[in-house]
């Protein structure tokens, strides 16, 4: 039985929930659907859990996390998350890699965090960052508020003729507005504003009003969190909003999670920590893992992988604060990437400019012309609304027009959605393949005579990442060390060793950067040998359980009998 989902559209909340319920119903042995909390307006924040229930409880397997729509308008992420759920469930059993992942790993997928914001975004002309809770001002302030003043369902731009304007019309394409040159006088010039109305207009000054929905849930997390004055969108205190708090509580509770993907738009880039510290300050072993896994993403998506501080911050001196994946890395030691989906500018033929200051060294006219050409070619021009006259209640005769924000600039247009979802889904599956995996390699009981046994086992990490996932986790004591616990048979006593042994952490295959081409010991031990001396009545069963917070639980039973 297959479930068909139209991935060439942005899903409203109800459609999304309906699809999730159908999938959960159709694949009961592999999935669970539940809410991890309610939004500001009371919508459920759903988590879709995927793992094979026959291969053990989800808590006893390494966990992998995916979320989308921490920013309301970035709905492309929801499509990726939904696609990933559908892709895994429908391919379980037929696809070897997916079958192995679903049998041995637990996936926790939150397709839409700011359900309120996304709904407002999809059902009104308004843009917003995250939540629909008015912030930082509850009452209206002076200045220009974006409004769909002509009622065509879109908030575009207004161009107002003004001899002192700083913009003019390109001679190469009348749709394109380009800057007036420093020495220029005597032409037809314009001022450009967002389509909207000015509150308390004094007839002269037009200043943008502060954002009505100024909360940014991705500045809300307790990693270098700073208040509004230092970090716009921060909220009154860390995790003050129901959505962020629900996500944080979920991650703090679901301790098997090793990291994952938090989807955003746009740019076409895979972001990773740190936002506040340069890469050279990051633990080299962690950096090696971040880059090795990031490379898989680069190959599958064509998007480069960079740390925010090194490759994305507008000014590394003023770090972004309170970011989600900085919190998950700095405080929890997890590996969460954040892909900025949809690379319109690159598709339009722009070379991948340095992400620091995206418009640096770009000729705005050339840039605009390329975008318009792409729009005409791929969308037969629908992406740009040509300028049309409108009588503005405050400015009089103006023209409205410009790029469609929501389904072109901020999100992949519907016909590009599925492809976007597919390639990014594949990256998350590779990332999930790198989790640490605890195993009991060898388990023997040697009878020393007189009912005394020497018990020996070897615990091992078969995964790529260490059982602590990152060195950062060790540093902040975020990942519990591996333990091995014995359950002695009736009437047995432990002569040597502890019932519960702390093994510490086991390395993974991830290699600290080094001259590995140079003949050297390029392998590290990833296993540990443990011994006990047990005195037990003949034929008793000794059970041994190895436990790792992040690498899963393993269990074995040794039968203690004197060979006759």
């Amino acid at each position, binding site marked *: 039985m297959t479930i068909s989902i139209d991935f060439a559209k942005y899903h409203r909340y109800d459609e999304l929930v309906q699809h999730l319920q159908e999938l959960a119903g159709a694949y009961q042995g592999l999935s669970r659907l539940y809410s991890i909390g309610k939004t500001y307006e009371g919508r459920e924040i759903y988590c879709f859990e995927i793992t094979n229930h026959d291969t053990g409880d989800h808590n006893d397997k390494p966990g992998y996390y995916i979320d989308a729509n921490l920013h309301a308008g970035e709905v492309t992420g929801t499509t990726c998350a939904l696609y990933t759920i559908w892709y895994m469930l429908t391919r379980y059993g037929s696809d070897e890699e997916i079958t192995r992942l679903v049998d041995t790993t637990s996936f926790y997928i939150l397709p839409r965090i700011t359900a309120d914001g996304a709904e407002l975004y999809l059902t009104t002309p308004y843009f917003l960052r995250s939540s629909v809770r008015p912030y930082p001002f509850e*009452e209206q*302030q*002076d200045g220009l508020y974006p409004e769909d003043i002509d009622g065509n369902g879109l908030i575009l731009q207004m161009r107002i003729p003004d001899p002192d304007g700083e913009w003019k019309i390109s001679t190469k394409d009348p749709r394109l507005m380009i800057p007036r040159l420093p020495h220029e006088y005597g032409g037809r010039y314009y001022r450009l504003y967002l389509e909207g109305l000015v509150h*308390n207009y004094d007839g002269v000054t037009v200043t943008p009003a502060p954002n009505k929905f100024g909360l940014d849930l991705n500045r809300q997390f*307790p990693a270098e*969190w700073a*208040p*509004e*004055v230092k970090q716009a969108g921060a909220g*009154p*205190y*860390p*995790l*003050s909003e129901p959505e962020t708090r629900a996500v*944080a509580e979920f991650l*703090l509770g679901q301790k098997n999670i090793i990291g994952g993907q938090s989807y955003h738009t746009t740019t076409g880039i895979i972001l990773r920590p740190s936002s506040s510290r340069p890469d050279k300050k990051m633990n080299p072993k962690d950096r090696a893992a971040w880059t090795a896994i990031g490379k898989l993403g680069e190959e599958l998506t064509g998007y480069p992988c960079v740390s925010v501080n090194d490759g994305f911050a507008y000014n590394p001196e003023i770090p972004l604060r309170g970011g989600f994946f900085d919190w998950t890395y700095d*405080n929890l030691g997890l590996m969460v990437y954040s892909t900025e989906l949809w690379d319109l500018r690159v598709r339009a033929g722009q070379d991948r400019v340095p992400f620091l200051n995206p418009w640096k060294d770009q000729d705005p006219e050339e840039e605009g012309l390329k975008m318009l050409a792409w729009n005409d070619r791929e969308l037969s021009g629908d992406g740009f609304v040509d300028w049309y006259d409108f009588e503005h209640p405050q400015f009089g005769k103006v023209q409205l027009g410009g790029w469609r924000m929501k389904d072109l600039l901020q999100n992949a247009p519907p016909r590009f959605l599925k492809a976007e979802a597919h390639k990014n889904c594949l990256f998350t599956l590779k990332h999930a393949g790198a989790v640490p995996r605890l195993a009991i390699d060898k388990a023997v009981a040697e009878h020393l005579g007189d009912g005394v046994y020497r018990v020996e086992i070897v615990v091992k990490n078969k995964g790529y990442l260490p059982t602590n996932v990152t060195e950062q986790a060790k*540093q*902040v*004591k*975020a990942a519990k060390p591996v333990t091995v616990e014995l359950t002695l048979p009736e009437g047995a006593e432990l002569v040597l060793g502890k019932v519960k042994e702390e093994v510490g952490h086991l390395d993974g295959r991830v290699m600290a950067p080094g001259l590995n081409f140079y003949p050297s010991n390029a392998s590290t031990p990833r296993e540990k040998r443990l011994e006990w001396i047990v005195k037990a009545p003949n034929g008793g069963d000794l059970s041994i359980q190895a436990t790792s917070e992040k690498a899963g639980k393993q269990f074995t039973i040794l039968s203690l009998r004197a060979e006759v």
Partner: protein
Amino acid sequence: MSQLAKFDPGRYLRYAEMTELLQELAAAYPGLCTLEEIGRSHEGRSIWAVTLTNAATGPASEKPGYLIDANTHAGEVTGGAAALYSVHYLLTQYGKDPIATEILDSRAFYAVPRIAVDGVELYLTSPTMLRSSPKRYPLAEEPPGFYAKDMDGNGQILQMRVVHPDGDWKVDTEDPRLMVRRQPEDRGPGPYYRIFVEGEIEGWDGRAIPPVHRPMGLDFNRNYPAFWNPEGLQPGAGPYPLSEPETRALATFLMEHKNIGAYVAYHTSGGVLLRPPSNRGDDKIGQADLEGFKRIGEVCTRATGYPCKSTYDAFNYPGQSALVKGADDWAYEFHGVQAYTFELWDMDGRAGAHGYSQIGVKGLIKLSEAEVIEDGRKLLKFNDEALGGKGFTNWTPFGHPQLGPVEIGGWDPKFAEQNPPEGALLVDEVTRAASFTFQHCLATPRLAIGRIEVKSVGGGVYEMAVEVQNTGFLPTNVTELAVQNKRSTGVKVTVEAAEVLAHRGGERTNGRYVIGEIAGWGKDAAKWISFVVRGSAGSKIRLTAAHERAGTVRHEVTLP
């Protein structure tokens, strides 16, 4: 008999008693006192806040606000007693004591008398010592290890001393109750002792004695957003800032009452008024704020005899990374509130011994062994003379199930070391505490409209000049950080029932005229703004001056 009728400031009240008292006060003084639940504790108890102000002189929200809280730390019950005493005093003395009367008429006095409601209850009803909450933290389970426990059932967790050739303690030559450090050159026959907390070992293998495990390690005062760090770096921090219902309730209350400009959190012990910052020296804070902190600190010293120190000066010492504190730092750093932590009860000081309140921790670690011993003797003398010997239990033999013969004794950790015993000493502490906070409350800024000059310029046009004053000691913004954090956005004047043609002084935004902050006592304690208005002779103009922290004042002007 009602709690109100039998109220005794020298007693520590149980939760039920406190709740009753507060409810009775609210009922008895409807025009002066309102009681509200601002949250529920981990175990579901209500966390109470009282608002004290004379409703007849205006709503609390239109008056400068002042906040006291207590028992962020469960065991520091002196603070709770001080808060209840303050509330009780202000209400019962209103109309009699001019200070109480002025506070309730001109200010909004907020009190959250008990934050760690669960912890205090456990503290008052069992021998258990705990920091904030009975919640098991950071570990949900209890691993094998040494656990403090009342072994001899005398209701207290004291100390155990065990004779041991490698012991690091010996008995003082002058006072046999006093244990002093065995010195490197003490090689005589002894006896020498090892000292442990009274308790026993879970899952002991009969060998080495493991370190103490404290299962209730949560510290509300490390759970605030300022300089917060996770548990691995800052013990007691909690999973994330304001993760606990108790701290969240207090934080939300402070943030929602934007009129709160000054705040004191009651703690014990030490006898010192601590002020931010806790993570850096005084050279790294705004000099105006520093001046304000110090001037008010001197008020405290005059009123209570307790010195005022920055937390950094008091606790920072060589080799220790700067201590990061909680509520007061958060209130100051992020909200620009002039916040203090008041450490009550200074047994060292009363006994004439050295305490950190006087010389700071860096002074304590410099003390010579001889000075330490001298201090120990003084404290025991204080126990005999001032505490009637109840503060120190002499060493008495006890057969320990695991360690064999030991002796149990030492200082009462709760009602000698951490708090004064009930009675006169407690009354002395709470009255000292209140005598400072009342003055602090009255130092907050308060707006008044001074002179108003109106003259007609003909044609129904008038020129009106208005003087807005700050009658408080502190500036309207209270601190520089309040301005930087946009928690104080200047005095706003509105003119109603007249058309304003022009104005001089101030800036018009959102229909109001912002004239900025007004300094406290001194030549700059007033600002002028003038308007050109159109109106008809005899008509009334409504003037309002409002400030987040300095209150709202209204005035009606009749055009000549």
